[in-house]
């Protein structure tokens, strides 16, 4: 019980510190902006550890974070193999193929107002559908290896990126387009110098949505058949064989990869769309 008590005391102390920090005169500094959420996350972990230890929860149900960390450190070789299989081979390739396909489609569609009006509602509808359901079909079509996972990812990321890119390409104002016309700019010049840059915030919005979808697609597709490696494979067999600590280590990897992937896209966005109001200030 003392572990639980200690965790609760820590929670109270961290909460009080956070309140003090948020209301102090340092609250706008960079350090405090970082410390407050980190402290919140650490509190959650400490609470988890305290509850599991204090209430003697079985390791088979919920292992404490310290044990997950040990397993993580001890089985980096397995985790690395799974990371390569699921993330680098499945998710990343699918993400790149899906992005290129959606981007090219959007540029092609954009030339016809008729097609744009027809495809936008349909694309929006498809983007809201539970497309993960195609995973078994893709595994059936493309086999067990990474090709089928990449295919699921392609289908999943295609529509959000398509819709956002098409919307972005329409984001320029008539005044700006008229200016390009008075310059005698060709279609390509208008596209490259005005409309694509203006579309970038929208495109990155779609890419950010797609990062999470890509990982979800690659992992779900592995539940339907995969070679004997991969994060989805390890999770589904780990739950079956009660090696729950390894499953949590995989979840930690998935969380890290998802956050990093998102972070990289956000970083590139900052570089590309530095002019946009949301990036200034």
């Amino acid at each position, binding site marked *: 019980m003392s572990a639980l008590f200690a965790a609760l005391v820590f929670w109270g102390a961290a*909460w009080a510190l*956070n*309140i003090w920090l*948020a*209301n102090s005169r340092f*609250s706008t500094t960079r350090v405090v*902006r970082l410390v*407050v*959420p980190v*402290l*919140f*996350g650490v509190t959650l972990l400490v609470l988890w550890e305290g509850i599991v230890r204090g209430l003697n929860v*079985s390791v*088979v*149900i*919920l292992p404490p974070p310290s044990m997950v960390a040990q397993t993580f450190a001890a089985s980096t070789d397995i985790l690395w193999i799974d990371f390569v299989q699921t993330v680098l081979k499945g998710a990343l390739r699918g993400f790149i193929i899906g992005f290129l396909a959606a981007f090219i489609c959007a540029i092609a569609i954009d030339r016809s107002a*008729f*097609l*744009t*009006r*027809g*495809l936008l*509602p*349909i694309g929006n*509808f498809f983007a*809201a*559908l*539970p497309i*993960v*359901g*195609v*995973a*078994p*079909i893709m*595994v*059936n*079509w493309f086999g067990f290896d990474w090709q089928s996972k990449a295919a699921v990812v392609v289908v999943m990321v295609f529509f959000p990126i398509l819709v956002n890119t098409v919307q972005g390409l329409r984001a320029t104002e008539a005044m700006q387009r008229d200016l390009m016309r008075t310059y005698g700019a060709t279609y390509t010049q208008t596209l490259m110098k005005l409309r694509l840059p203006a579309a970038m915030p929208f495109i990155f919005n779609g890419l950010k949505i797609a*990062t*999470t979808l890509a*990982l*979800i697609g690659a*992992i*779900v597709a592995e*539940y*339907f058949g995969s070679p004997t490696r991969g*994060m*989805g494979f390890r*999770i*589904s067999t780990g*739950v079956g064989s009660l090696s*729950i600590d390894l*499953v*949590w280590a*995989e*979840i930690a990897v*998935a*969380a890290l990869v*998802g*956050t990093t992937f*998102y972070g990289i896209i956000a970083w590139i966005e900052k570089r590309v769309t530095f002019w946009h109001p949301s990036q200034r200030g």
Partner: protein
Amino acid sequence: MRNLLPVLSVLGALLVLWYLAVAPMNIRVALDQVERGGATVIPEGSVERRDVSVWRLMAQNSAHVKTGYALDRPRLPTPAQVGQELWKTTGAMAMKGRAWSKRSLIYHGWITLQSTLWGFFLGTSLGIIGAIAIVYSRVAEMSLMPWAIISQTIPIVALAPMIIVVSSQMGVDGRGFPKAIISAYLCYFPVLVGMVKGLRAPEVSQLDLLKTYDATGLQSFLKLRLPASVPYLFTSLKVGIAAALVGTIVGELPTGAISGLGARILIGDQFGTPLAIWSALFAAAILAGMLVTLLDLTQRLALRRMGMQA
């Protein structure tokens, strides 16, 4: 309405493409089937055909291409086949009074809908409470907001089997609860973000006006912030309900569920009946469409009653 013609023609083009794709996708299965029936196929034997491209197979066996459009277990069913299967497992069964039979997609759709609505309710409540906390408390904003964003970059499917293990160990009955948790996890975020935006939508001058009226915090919340957030709320509810449905189906897929649309997909995969997978997929799409349309209508109605045109 002016989008109707373009939308219909794009849909028509997609259907034509689909029909055209059926022939090359199914030619191998079709040739295997007619060969077993005694017809001569060039080249003979499915092992021989493995290295021959589908286009060549179609050219050499043009008489058998049409078999690919009427297979029992096609790699890619035709739209008509999917439509028939969908009708057979919904409308036709309902007319026979067996809408709640275990083979009916209405029954499975209802199971999925229940979990979706529970998850939607849970996620929306969490999102709204979180948004109120964030708008009114600086600590909450600084500590919750980054984690809310991070939580969405974590692929929830990785957690799905764990949520089911934990909840079954804790003695929670039924599979509805873990599914609802997963769909709430996916659905709370758009609501949270939309509501934060909505609650902050009133301008400073409007808030100041209420201050001159000597309005209490609760009054300015109920009379200004909450009404101002309604358009934002509905927009994010539409995103949220679609996310909740995705969450429920994701929750059903990897966990060996036996009822629900995701379970139909899983069972169709295990028993090798592609038509069952496709019809369940389309049923899920129709369900998503109905839910979003319903919310859209509610939004129009509510905003008109409140004097804000959508």
